[in-house]
């Protein structure tokens, strides 16, 4: 029988659903923009006010990185949603959640890599007409999140073993 389902989790589910949808929309938008810069490069760049000011390949590279970021974010958000579902069903300590948390840990690390790549590309395509100088900052908070996810994966693995043990106890 499912245990009580805290209100914070109800809220979390709703927020997650919204974030997942928003992320997909952002991804589709960047993808559409990317296609536009390929099939109609000059008009699009003109509209963005970037015609002649900056490397088209550079902009496209940033967009590709953006899409990659969206995909990775999707993995993290859907993983978290799946974990919240198991809490709703009263069985959070399962091996699948340990695997999900580990995947999420690597995903957030990947997100950090994407962030670094975007900064490097942006600084590389900086031109006189459009100077870009973004500082490369390693976020301690994001790295802490990565560590937290890996630690939780270990905790959930232990928890799943303990639950299995308990299930056979009368």
């Amino acid at each position: 029988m499912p245990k009580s389902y805290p209100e914070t989790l109800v809220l979390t589910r709703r927020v997650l659903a919204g974030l997942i949808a928003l992320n997909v929309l952002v991804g589709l938008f960047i993808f559409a923009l990317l296609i536009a810069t390929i099939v109609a490069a000059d008009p699009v760049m003109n509209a963005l006010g970037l015609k002649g000011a900056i490397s088209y390949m550079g902009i496209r590279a940033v967009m590709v990185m953006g899409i990659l970021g969206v995909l990775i974010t999707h993995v993290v958000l859907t993983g978290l949603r799946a974990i919240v579902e198991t809490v709703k069903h009263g069985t959070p300590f399962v091996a699948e959640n340990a695997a999900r948390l580990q995947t999420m840990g690597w995903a957030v690390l990947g997100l950090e890599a994407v962030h670094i790549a975007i900064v490097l590309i942006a600084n590389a395509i900086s031109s006189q007409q459009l100077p870009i100088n973004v500082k490369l900052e390693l976020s301690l908070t994001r790295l802490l999140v990565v560590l937290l996810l890996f630690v939780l994966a270990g905790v959930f693995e232990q928890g799943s073993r303990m639950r299995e043990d308990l299930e056979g106890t009368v």
Partner: protein
Amino acid sequence: MSINVKLDDMLHSRRMTLTDLSEEIGLTLANLSILKTGKARAIRFSTLEAICAALDCQPGDLLEFNPAQRGETDINELEKPV
């Protein structure tokens, strides 16, 4: 599993059904079934005490150790580390 639970025999000699026992000691029929069919991995002393009180017997009347069955693993135990 080399520990056998002789719940059937005890219930029979006390003229009780599994349902009767379940109602008497407050353990679910599902859990008692797990115990009866040898699927249990562990039993709490509190459960053992309740069963012995209800059936007026000793733990030894309920549990039997069969060394010949040692090493026979339940399929569920195969992936579990010791």
